[in-house]
Each structure stands twice: as C-alpha cells, then as structure tokens.
C-alpha cells in the first residue's frame, strides 16, 4: 500500500521498521472481509480447525471421505476463518495531555517540548498506518471535552488519510471525557474490535476499572498506552511554584520541597491501584514515559501481541 505521507508527526524510518511487524488481535475478531486475524466463525482458510458430524444441509463437498472410509461415518472438516479487525483508536484530548515539560529538570533525555498529545499522535498514527497496511479497519475517537471526534473504523486508504489528518489537527483542552467515550464505544461498536486507548488516565482508578470491564464485557480486545511525563512522576522542583491546572481548574501554589514526598506517595498509591485494575481487567496495558522512543514502544507492543504459535 502506498501512502502519500505528509504528516510530520509520522516518522518514515519508524514506519519502515515497524512495517515488518504485524498487528495481531489477542482475541478472535469478527470482520467483514478476509484478513489475517482469527475469527470465531469457521471459514475456508488452510488452517484446520475441527471435525463435526454431518447434518443434512451441509455442503457435501466439505465431507472428509477419508474419515468416512475409516469410520463409516460422515464428518465435515472445518477450517479457521481469517478475517480483518476493526481497530478503534481512542485518544484522550483533555487539557492534561498537552503537558510537556520544557525545562527537563530530571535530565531524562526526552525530546524537549514533546507533549503527551504529540506522543499519542505519533503512537496512534503509526498504529493506524500499520493496521491499514495489513488491511484492517481503523477508526478514531477523541476523548476531550472541547475536542470531540468520532470516525468509525473503515479500511480504505482514503479513510486512513482522514484519520491521520484528524490526528494531526487534534488539540488538547478542557476536562477529560475518556470515561464517557469508552463506555459509549463499548456500546456502539457491535462487533469485536481492538480498542487502543492512549491517555494519561488521570482519573480515579475505579472509573478506569469500570470502563475497561465494560469493554471487556463486550468482547473487545483492549490495549492501553498510559502516557506519563517523567516530571509528573518525580515532581522534582526546587522552589515554590504556581501549578496551573491544564484542565481548567483552580491553580495551586505549592512548595515541592514541602509536599514532594506526599506527591510521590500519592502517585505510588495511584499506580499501585492502576496495577490492580489492569490485573483485574486483563487489558494490554503499557505504562510509558514519553521520553521513550515511541518506535521502541510500538515494537514492544506489536511483538507482545504476536501469537505464540507463530513464534
């Protein structure tokens, strides 16, 4: 598939590197065309699935005559069906996703000025490209109070272009609407799909648990990219500062030297709670610092989803 790439957030080298990998669903998908993913419906692929007894009405061409010769009974030979998948990219566009610490006080070596939304844009765009490349349908949902996009998954090149364009134009502002969009997506996508959530998940862990459980209940394969900035974790500032809420709340004047320990303690509790949520809902969870190379992150993600039988 040849795409005219004009989106500067996509890196040609990363795309080339990742194009050798395939995006696999961890669960069988229900597609409308033949594809590379397992389907819960038996199909005509070369992959043997099982025998079952012949019932009148079955296509006699699928009778296994050899089995009849051995057992004197009629068996229908069934094969796996390969289908395509629907990948829904859900990107959090709340104000907090715009966070980028230019000062880089912790010396973590990240790209200066790179916000979590920029990072999400790269991850989502690359995944959309890879999915489209292997013939999967790609949809985009933006979970922001002010910026709201709903692009249902389709598998055309034109559709990919629309998705990438929207990714390029999305902005972060306002409070998050991630919980609502996840519940809505769980209900509105009728068939199994790969739901890729890219967010900083600054919500109560219980809210996150409810969203994930809802998605899992609807048989969706859920993958989560939990984006964090290193300074959000370390909170290492040496002087009192006024912290302006990026989601529009009241600013807070605080001395990090005074409340740093408590902040880190609160963060630890949150992350531990998130771990509990992940263990309970069995989503494909990736906690990422945005100073990491997103190509490596995606490579790890794709490799982690590769079915074992193919290894």
């Amino acid at each position: 598939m040849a795409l005219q790439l004009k989106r500067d957030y996509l890196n040609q080298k990363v795309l080339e590197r990742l194009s050798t990998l395939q995006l696999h669903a961890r669960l069988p998908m229900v597609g409308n065309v033949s594809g590379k993913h397992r389907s819960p419906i038996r199909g005509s692929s070369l992959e043997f699935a099982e025998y079952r007894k012949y019932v009148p009405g079955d296509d006699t061409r699928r009778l296994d005559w050899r089995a009849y010769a051995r057992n004197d009974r009629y068996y229908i030979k069934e094969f796996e069906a390969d289908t395509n998948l629907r990948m829904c990219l859900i990107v959090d566009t709340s104000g907090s996703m715009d966070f980028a610490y230019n000062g880089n006080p912790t010396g973590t070596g990240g790209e200066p000025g790179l916000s979590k939304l920029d990072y999400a844009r790269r991850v989502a765009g690359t995944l959309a490209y890879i999915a489209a490349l292997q013939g999967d349908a790609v949809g985009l949902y933006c979970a922001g109070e002010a910026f709201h996009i709903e692009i249902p998954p389709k598998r055309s090149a034109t559709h990919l272009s629309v998705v990438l364009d929207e990714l390029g134009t999305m902005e972060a502002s306002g409070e998050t609407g991630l919980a609502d969009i996840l519940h809505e997506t769980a209900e509105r996508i009728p068939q199994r799909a790969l739901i890729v959530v890219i967010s900083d998940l600054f919500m109560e862990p219980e809210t996150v648990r409810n969203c994930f459980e809802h998605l899992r209940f609807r048989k969706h394969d859920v993958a989560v990219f939990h984006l964090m900035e290193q300074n959000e974790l370390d909170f290492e500032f040496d002087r009192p500062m006024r912290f302006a809420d990026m989601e529009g709340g009241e600013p807070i004047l605080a001395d990090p030297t005074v409340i740093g320990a408590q902040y880190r303690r609160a963060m630890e509790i949150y992350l531990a709670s998130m771990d509990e949520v992940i263990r309970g809902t069995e989503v494909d969870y990736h906690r990422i610092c945005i100073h990491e190379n997103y190509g490596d992150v995606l490579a790890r993600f794709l490799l982690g989803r590769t079915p074992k039988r193919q290894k």
Partner: protein
Amino acid sequence: MSFLQPLALIALPLMALPIIIHLINQQRHRTIPWAAMMFLMSAKRMSRGMARLRHLLILLMRVLAIGALIFAISRPLSGGWLGSIGFSQPDATLILLDRSASMEMQDLQAGESKRSTALKRLAQLLEQGDYGTHLLLIDSASGQMQEVDSPKALLNLPMTGASATSANIPSMLETALAYLKANESGRAEIWICSDLNENDWDIHSGRWNAIREAFAQLEGVHHFLLAYTDPPSGNLSVRVENVQRWKRGNDAELILDVMVRTGGDSSGTRRVPIEFEVNNVQSVVEMELDTLGASLQGHRIPIDAKLSSGWGSVSLPGDANPLDNRFFFVFSEPPVRKAVVVSDDKRIGEAFRRALAVPLDARLQHHADVIPVNRVAEIDWENTGLLIWQGALPSGLVAEQIAHFVNSGRVAMFFPPAHHAGDQLFNSHWGDWQSSDPGQVSKVAWWRGDADLLAHVESGDALPLNGLRTYRYRTLEGTGTPLARFDNDAPLLTRVSTDHGAIYFCSTLPTAQFSSLERDGIVFYVMLQRALTEGCLALAAAAQRDAGVGVLADRDQWKSVVSAENTASLSQRELHAGVYREDEYWVAVNRSQAEDNAKVSPVETVDALFDGLSYRRIDVDVGDTSALASELWRIFLIAMALALILEAVLSLPSRKTEATPLIDLTVADGSTE
C-alpha cells in the same frame, strides 16, 4: 525595657518584611501548567497540617530574626524592673542615699559596702541610660539636696561617703517631694538606696500617709528602691552605754557599761576580745557572747588621778561592718547636780527640795534651791540642770530664758499653780482644778513604762504608780504626749516634744492636799531624780552624742582629737565618729543606738508604703557590683542567629527516600498473555 538607641526601634515595622516578601512571592511564583493536579491536591491534603505549621514557623523565624537584629541595634538594657520606665526619659533623677552606719556592712571578699555597692550600680545604670536634665542627690546624713554633674561623680562626692549617722527616709522623701512640687518637674525618677533599717524607715510613722498621698498627686514620678533585704549577718557592734569617772581615794577610775550586740545569726556562745583604749593605754577583756550578744557592766579601768577628763575607745576585732567596731567615749569629773525650784508655796518647794537634794549616789554632789517666782532673775541658768516651776506659766523674758534653758539640753518641769494659771507656754496652758468626789481618789490607769521618767526600774519592776492617789489635779490643754493618765484619761504627766532638752507638765502637786506623791515618795523621788540626771547631762564637761548635722554646732572651736574618718570638711566631720574638744569640754560622736539594732523592715511593709505609686523594688546583694542594667544586644544577636539556624533547618528540603522507579518498563506491561 529601655534602650540606648531607641531611634533604632523605628525600624521595627521591618519585622513585617518577611511576610510582605512572602505575599509578593506568592504573586511572583513561576507558574507552570500542570497536568497531574489530582496528585498535587492529594499531596496538599496529606501535608496540610505539618507543612502549614512548618511554613508558619519559617516565617516566624524570619520575623524574629529581623526583630532580634533591630533590638540588638537599639542596645536594650536588661532588668525586668526597667520595663515600667518605658521609652520616655525623665526630666529629673533624684537619688536618696542612705548613708547610715548600717549601710557600711561589707562583703568581706569584694571589699564593697552596701552603700558603695548601691552607688556603683546606680552610677553605672544612670551612666548607661538617660537621667534627665537634673541629677540630684539627697544624702541621709545631711538631708540636703545637691545637684550632681554626672553619675560618675556620685562615687567621689563627700556627700556619698560613709557616715555614722542614722537616716530618715520619710524626711528625705519629703525633701524630694518639695523639690518636685517647687520645680513642677514632669517625669522624675526617685532612686532610694537603703538597707531597710527599721529605724531609718520609721515605717509606723503617720508621715507615710501624707507622703504617699502627695506623691500620688504627682504624675510621672517613678520610685525605685535598691534594697538590701537580707538581714545583716556576721557582724558585731560595740557600744558604751555609760561612762563615769570616780575618785577612789588618791586614785581615779573609769566605770564603763559596755554592750556588744550580735547580728542575730550566731549560734551558741563564743568569746570575743574587747580592746579598751584610754589615754593611749590599751587593755583587752574577753567577753562571752550568746546569740544576742553580751553586756559588760561596771568595767573598771584605773586612770591617773590627775586625768580629770579625757577620751577613750572600745574596739572589736574586724568584721563585716567596720563602722560599728569602735566606740568613742569621753569622761570628766561629774558636775554638781543643781536644781532650782521656783514656787511661792514654801511647803511645796520644800517637798521638791528634799526629793532633789538626796543624791542617788553618795559620790555625786546635789544642790537644790527653792526661790519664789519674783526672784527668778537670781537663777544661775548656766549651772542648773533641772528647773521645777510651780506657779503661773511665765511669759516674756522669763519664758524666753526657760526656752533657751531647755534648748541647751536641760530639763524643765512644770507643776500647776494653786490659783492663777498664767499664759500659754510651749503650746500648753493650765486648765481648771479638778477635785475627786468625796471619798474617791483619781488613780493612774496607764503610764509609759518602757522609757522616760516613769520607766520601769533596771530590774524590770514597775514603779508603784498604781498606789498613787490623787485628790486634786489641774487639767492641761496642749499638744504634749501623755506619759501617765488617770482613769478618766486626763493626763497626770505630759512631755512636750522639743529638739533638745525636755519639758514636762505634771497635773498635780506632791503635798497631801493634792496627792500622795510626797507621802508615797518612790514615784516622786524617781521621777525628779531622773529628770535631774537628764538635765545635768548638759552640765557635764564631757558629752556623748549621736552623729548628725549640728551635733558640734553648740561651740565654735571644736577641735578634732581623734576621728574614725579622715575628712577635711568641717561640715562632714560631725557625721563621723570621733572625739572633739574645746578647752575643758569634750564630746564623743558615735553612731546612734538604732544603727546597732539593725532590724530590717519587712519588705512587704516597705512595699505597702508605696501602694498606689509607681514603685519597683530591686533587691541587691552587698558586694554585687554587676550592672543593674547590662546591655542585652548579645542575647538578641544570639537569638537572631538561633532564629536563622532554625529557619535554615526548617527550610531544608525533606530527605529523599530512595524509592524504586515508579515506572518499570520491564514489568509495567500488563499483557494478558
């Protein structure tokens, strides 16, 4: 608190600087957009109590540091008692210095007396502070007020030196009061330096009420009392109670009654050597002292028979108060005890003469004349010790002669005339005769037995005034102090207050028609003999006197024979113990008996004397010359340093705990595989 640089306190509002900076910084804090607000709020909730407290403490430490610095620059003076001074400066500072003999009690190690200690500390304090435009000294010895150039000059003035006098604190306060009223001084400080000697303070005097009320009407007058409240200890004082020169055949001897008092703190008995010096001959006698001391009665010292008069001294070994370790005495041949009875009634005159002519001691010569009123001019005033006047009270020249007679130390006794009462004399005059009802007599209901003419005898037994029967007496109207009263409160014997000598009024007559005075005899005899003895003291060529202003004023050419203090000032020499002579007259000047008693007034009672006034008592110890008000800037600098250190400690960032990274990329992936 007072300050040497009070202008620096103008900078006190700078203490608000940290708070202002904090408020400004709150507006100037760097603002950064922040995403993870939920953790920030959670952290603030978790650290609200301690962090807020720490923040407040840091601010407080900064405020305190600046405050301490400003206070240090303003050079504060120590002493909680200075708090009442405030920041205003006095217009005048009056120093009332107790120079009494008891103030010479020393701290043997420091070599400083109570007086010098108080002076040094006060001079130091005033030197550091502001004593106003007038610095005035009222010393107890002279009672005079004098302006002093500077506090340091106090240490070298003769008016601040030791003296053997007693003090009169109420009188000194009255002098100060008169000055403040006359000069309409605004704010004034009165510093009293005293050892609270009961005699000096006369705390039971009615004058205190008037003084207190007068000071209460003055605004801005602060009283400070530098007080030695500890009772004196480790001190002995010696006193010659009586000295007589007697001839004994061809020899002569002195008979001395010596009293040694202890400070009251000694336990058990001890022996103390007493050194006598007469005519440059020393002799030592050991006395055994109990807790109160001891007396040596009738100690005989043989002298040359040709030595008709002279001086001597009795000394103790050195102790805490050197001023009461030596007592001077003078002696001379006893004078003829001459009394004059003025009466127109021969019988009454004879009764007096008989009582006066019989000597107490056979070695004494007694002589009594009875003359009628119209021959008063014949009286030899110079050689008479006692005047008995039974007749109408005189006026004119005779009254003036009697007044002069009394002022020269003699005694006059007045008995009621039978008829005409006469004029008023010494603010007293006779009233009407009062007669008892038939079969009734007036009896003495009360008399003063502790002193004066009707005092108990040496054995402690009272005179038999209970048995005295009075049939007729004459009322007396005047301002005298009764020494004996009838059961109807009418006075029998009254003493009129005088500076010198003594004046008595007796309301009845000795003859049987009026009373049983003559018939019972004892009271009559003792009363007259005591009056004669007192009056004849002025006749002796040798006299013992208490140190004080005017004790040498009776003669112009007193020359110092021996003095306890080397003083060139004629006005000051009478304030010190010593012996003076002019021709055949001798006088020994010593401290008063009250100074030996050295009873300290209770501080509560002294404090009560200043009730309602701005008053502060500062207890000091003898020999402690440390500054009354030392500068405190060092303390404030230390306080500032401590505040800064605390501020630094509180400002230190909390110790980082080595925690595992919150994101471990190798385990964070929650793959469901």
